[in-house]
């Protein structure tokens, strides 16, 4: 490669960040892929070194692809790193470069473009997926497909995921959502709710429960209806430009509301929202607007906690454990609020699992594209869940929730253990369940 293009490559790939790594190896014990794959190539230290080697022209980009694609992006290494090496940025840069270099066959590229640029940003599409899943479940097609094994022919193991999707609400319920839900009693704060795309299509009721919890904790809740996908999957797949377009649209929509918080309930989306300022840092026009958006963006658990928690929850005896979302823990740095909320529910016995902060293998669409690797990571996780004897695994991100459900299925624990979103867990314990 010529010096000129090497220079360009170094700019894009985050070469300068790699110098923060002193190769001490402190991140190795934190990395789930190093644990399951057992080689330096799939460790944070190894990946950083490979990015550096590629940027110096000592490694072909094609040889970098596998180590980068097999990384979960969970960022546990960032938390572990004593020199605060920005692995997340190195990873993002590498993905972007690899994506540009991509020699994906034309049809596959087309499909990817379509999914990222048409489906995710469109609430219509998302609704359609929700309706479709609902119809699929209601019409008995699901049963039929499962019985005949037809669903196993679906590409990329999607069938396995389809089995753990929650029951869907009808299109009628979906269309009855309002734009404003007032606080119960006197309002302490006002919030705008970021409903997410997948979250809103497949976890519609969790979203409605989120609104109820916020109302209950004393918040007026607005739902900007022109909001769009957060762009996390785009950014993590090296589609930086699309991510920027989505970010701008969201900022614009939420600016219309004069609220104290912009609340989200999906760890992964939240992590993207709080990085809008980084994403738009080179954009004169948008930088300031992004910073004020980020300042208001918070996870539901932090907001509930800051509003003083939920008054008068109903007592129910239950042993629970918590699988934190990586993006909530390592990017948003929210670790205590979800646990404190769960513990605050009367009758709850909270058992922390070993290595709690290790990724479950869900990681965006990792478990779809790297199914085998994801399942190995999940098996390690389930081995840590079992000794807690918990009947309930609480999660804070839709991806983790589905993954944990798969874990329960893989272990044949359906009768004994359930996985639920923190929001739904708390909602079950609200005194008068005024569902919306």
């Amino acid at each position: 490669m010529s010096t000129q293009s090497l220079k360009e490559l170094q700019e894009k790939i985050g070469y300068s960040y790699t110098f923060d790594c002193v190769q001490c190896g402190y991140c190795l014990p934190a990395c789930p892929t190093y644990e399951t794959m057992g080689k330096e190539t799939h460790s944070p230290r190894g990946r950083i070194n490979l990015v550096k080697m590629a940027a110096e022209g000592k490694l072909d980009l094609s040889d970098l692809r596998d180590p980068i694609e097999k990384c979960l992006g969970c960022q546990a290494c960032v938390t572990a790193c004593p020199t605060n090496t920005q692995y997340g940025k190195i990873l993002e840069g590498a993905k972007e470069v690899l994506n540009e270099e991509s020699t994906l066959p034309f049809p596959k590229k087309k499909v990817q473009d379509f999914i990222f640029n048409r489906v995710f940003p469109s609430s219509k599409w998302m609704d359609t997926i929700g309706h479709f899943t609902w119809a699929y479940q209601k019409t008995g097609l699901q049963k039929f497909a499962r019985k005949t094994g037809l669903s196993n022919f679906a590409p990329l193991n999607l069938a396995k995921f389809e089995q753990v999707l929650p029951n869907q609400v009808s299109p009628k319920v979906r269309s009855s959502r309002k734009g404003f839900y007032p606080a119960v009693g006197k309002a302490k704060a006002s919030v705008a709710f970021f409903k997410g795309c997948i979250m809103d299509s497949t976890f519609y009721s969790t979203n409605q429960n989120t609104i109820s919890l916020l109302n209950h904790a004393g918040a007026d809740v607005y739902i900007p209806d022109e909001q769009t996908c957060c762009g996390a999957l785009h950014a993590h797949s090296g589609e930086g430009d699309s991510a920027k377009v989505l970010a701008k649209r969201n900022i614009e929509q939420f600016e219309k509301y004069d609220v104290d918080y912009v609340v989200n309930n999906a760890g992964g989306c939240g992590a993207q929202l709080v990085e809008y300022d980084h994403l738009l840092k080179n954009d004169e026009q948008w930088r300031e607007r992004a910073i004020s958006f980020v300042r208001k963006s918070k996870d539901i658990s932090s907001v509930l906690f800051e509003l003083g928690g939920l008054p008068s929850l109903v007592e129910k005896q239950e042993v629970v454990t918590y699988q934190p979302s990586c993006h909530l823990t390592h990017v948003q740095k929210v670790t205590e609020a979800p646990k404190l909320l769960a513990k605050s529910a009367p009758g709850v016995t909270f058992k922390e699992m070993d290595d709690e902060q290790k990724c479950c293998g869900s990681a965006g669409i990792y478990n779809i594209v790297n199914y085998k690797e994801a399942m190995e990571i999940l098996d390690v996780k389930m081995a840590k869940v079992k000794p807690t004897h918990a009947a309930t695994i609480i999660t804070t991100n839709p991806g983790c929730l589905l993954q944990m459900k798969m874990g329960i299925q893989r272990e044949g624990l359906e009768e004994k253990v359930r996985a639920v979103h923190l929001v739904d867990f708390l909602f079950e314990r609200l005194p008068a369940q005024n569902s919306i």
Partner: protein
Amino acid sequence: MNKQWQIELEKIIKDKKRLLSNPADLLSYGFDGSFGQYQPERVVQPINREEVADIMKLANTFGVPVYPRGQATCLSGGPLPVRGGIVLDTCKMKDKLTIDSENLTATVSPGVITSKIKEAAEKEGFFYPPDPSSAHVSTIGGNVAENSGGPRGLKYGVTGNYVLGLEVVTPQGEIIRTGGQTIKNVTGYNLTQLLVGSEGTLGVITEVTLRLIPKPKSRVSLLVVFDDLVASGKAISGILSSGIMPSAMEIIDQHCINAVERHKPAGYPVDAAAILLIELDGHPKAIEEEMVEADRICREIGAREVQTASDEEDQKKLWEARKLVSPAIAKIKPTKISEDATVPRSKIPEMFERLSEIREKYNVELVVFGHAGDGNLHPNILTDKRDQEEMKRVEMAVSEIFESAIEVGGTLSGEHGIGTMKAPFMEKELGKIGLEMMRRVKEAWDPNDVMNPGKIFPQDGQTKLVLTE
């Protein structure tokens, strides 16, 4: 085209997942925690001693270099594949970790992470004292090969003081055992201790038997604050000569304190010239008295402040911050040259003075912390390897650090080993014949020079450190 030895290697390691040859894998095993990047021709991950023996037989026959490797946290270049050949990764050999409560010993596979041994021992009420700061990452094999130490070296010694016996694969691929399970053992040459600290140049360690001791009844830590670096050095000698034997006594200078506080605040005083961290352990009554005594001595010598931490949580916090010093200072500048010159304890104040002269003379970012109680200082220079002019100054500064240490009666390495980094200075410390005797030992064990070649011994004419390209 594969070379003959590579074809033969495939017959030994049949599991393709444990025999790595693609470019990304090879580059991933070409570095450690020090300096330099190399490319081996193969990486193998054996799971038992028989595989290791077969690999060594093959290597010896074909004259292919083999570099044992743990988790590559080495700070002196020990596992670097400087002449191509095979990196032998021991991390998958971790199936054995048994505690023998009757004999107070632990028997472990080489790839076991050091802190796991400590945890297992504590579960049975025992104590495994050596605690390198890297203990939660490094392997016991690497610890034995480097004779690693840590803060507790002062009272409890280093890894080597706990190794009773070893199982080793020789460079010719024979499996031997040295030492045993007994505390006393004077049968013949002490090969066990020869292998300890041999940095992988005499054989591959495939099992280690370690001595454990009863867990001390109680423990207390002191944080002593000084406005003057040299005074802190005097306090160290003061305490030791008073008859108190702390289990650890660490020094951290102002630059390091600031780096830690910037990185992850631990409540260290940022305006202090230096702090001493002192740990006392033993019978509760005894340490209570020692605590008062240590407090008095430090204040007399000029300590500004003495804080005590006796509950578990507070102590843990103090010491966790200490473990962060090494990585935290790396934030100062991207390239970190970490030294571990060790001097007689009485010479600590003098060494401090020399180090600050070196800092001035070469105008380099030189910071100091270390296991002051045993004279083991870690002068670190922070620089940027892309700045060739500065690197030249760093090279000279490092050479002068080594020379100063030797001149005051100290040694090149207290715990990080010689590796590639300090080889050029060996003759200065050992003399021509001294080094020659070591060379003869190496040649007797490994006549074909296949076992981690290029380490410890300087190449012909190599007399100075070279960090520039």
